[in-house]
């Protein structure tokens, strides 16, 4: 069984890598298997983890046999979950064209709740915390920072300021305003280049892992 599994892994791995050469039947087969298996994997996972694990067990908690062998119920049913069940049912109404529009109610709920949660979370972590980290003493606490930290702090202050000016929409980027925006785009470009360069290592690690599977686990050529 171990052999069969390793050969399946090798076949599918090389099938996906063959796409780099060009689209071919080997890749098409691997892609089709992947789409089917992954859609099914998420379908089954969501069914057991979310529908059964959260809704069914939450509303109808099954009895459990404890250590002493008696039948004991696991706890009070949580009837709030029924609202989730009703919303899920509304979503499924989409299958019936005549009352399919009711799925909009479920969608409206999801969109409204997400909007409410995100509004605050993003306001606090993407705006408040970022401003707090930017508004720092440039020369360090009671002027104790080293030279390259001071230069760094000034760079951060100027970069954040100019970057924000670049994102200004309702004013023409001309004159000093335009110049600041241009400095802003310089900083954005450094940010994109540095982030790109930083992620190269983790992308290469993934490929090293696959090559190690091919030549190590499968063909045993490397220890």
């Amino acid at each position, binding site marked *: 069984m171990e*052999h069969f599994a*390793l*050969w399946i892994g*090798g076949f599918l791995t*090389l099938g996906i890598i063959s796409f*780099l*050469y060009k689209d*071919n039947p080997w890749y098409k087969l691997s892609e089709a298997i992947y789409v089917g298996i992954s859609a099914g994997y998420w379908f089954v996972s969501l069914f057991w983890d979310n529908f059964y694990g959260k809704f069914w067990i939450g509303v109808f908690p099954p009895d459990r046999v404890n250590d002493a062998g008696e039948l004991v119920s696991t706890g009070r049913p949580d009837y709030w979950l029924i609202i989730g069940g009703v919303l899920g049912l509304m979503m499924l109404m989409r299958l019936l064209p005549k009352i399919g529009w009711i799925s909009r109610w479920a969608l409206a709920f999801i969109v409204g709740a997400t909007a409410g949660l995100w509004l605050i979370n993003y306001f606090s972590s993407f705006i408040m915390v970022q401003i707090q980290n930017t508004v720092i003493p440039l020369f360090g606490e009671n002027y104790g920072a080293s030279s390259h930290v001071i230069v760094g702090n000034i760079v951060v202050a100027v970069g954040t300021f100019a970057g924000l000016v670049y994102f200004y929409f309702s004013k023409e980027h001309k004159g000093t305003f335009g110049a600041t925006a241009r400095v802003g785009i310089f900083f954005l470009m450094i940010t994109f280049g540095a982030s790109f360069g930083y*992620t*190269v*290592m*983790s992308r*290469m*690690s*993934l*490929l*090293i*892992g696959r*090559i*190690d599977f091919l*030549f*190590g686990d*499968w*063909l*045993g*050529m*490397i*220890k």
Partner: protein
Amino acid sequence: MSIRAKELLVLGLIAVFSLIFYVGKVSGWKAVQFSTTVSIIVILLIVLSLVWILIKTIRGSLIERRIVFLYVGIAVALPLFMSLSQKIPISPEVKAVYDSIGELPAGSKVLVSFDYDPPSAPELQPMAEAFLYYCFVRDLKVIMIGLWPQGPQQANLAIEEVFEHEDIKPKNLKYGIDYVNLGYQAGNEFVIQRLGSDIKAMFPSDYRGKPYDEIPLVKNVKNFSNIDYCFNLSSGFVGTREWVQIAVDRFGVKLGAGNTAVQAPQMYPFMRAGQLIGLLGGMSGAAEFEYLTEWTGKGTKYMLSQSFAHMIVVAFIIIGNVAFFRSGRKSRLDR
């Protein structure tokens, strides 16, 4: 010979090549290992071919992206066969993990939590092996758990690897006395919370089903206070952040950690605040720790591939710019 025929020929070669080496593996062939001279010759050939591409680019015939793919494949694969070593600078956070384990007296109990899955194994498995090797070399007792479903399996793979080493074989360490694997428990950060009060309640038996009280190593280990050091290998949630917030902040545990390269930077604030004793970051962290503990593991070999791959990317950036300047100059000449 038509392209179609060439493609089928290549497919045939791949099939034959795989069959031969697979049968070889099953019948116990030794691993392929380039000697240092062969390695250097291979490197020279790669460099020469890159120079040849540069010359071709200057002459105006640009290479297509599949050549770049080929070079990335070569740059990642070949170093795995090489036995070269490269001078690896030891960063302070990796040295801190090494020193903190070095200070533990023999027989101390170390809890290792495996919180990752196979896709992150290339970065974290070498760390796990080096760490377990170093613990056993220093005669420490190791308790392994997993907060991710595949964690315990990764732990067993690491144990198998470490037990083949000639320094560890003579110690003939016994399961249940020198080391134990308590398996996976769902519950994320709530599991860490319970380890602070009663480990047995969270792990009533080990991953083989043997009751907690029948395992000599953990029989009188009640909670974190009986654990001398914790080490967490993490690639996401639940991971090092939760171990710091609960195990360290609430129960004052001594914690070291190994993280994937993408996640490591988020842990530096915990390092600076002293909540985290030390940190191994990505493959470079694994290679540095292997260098310190003298464990010949995959981290060092992987880092060789990383260096090659980065050099190839940098080389093609240079070639790309030469192509750009050449086409720019050519269009100016044509005008």
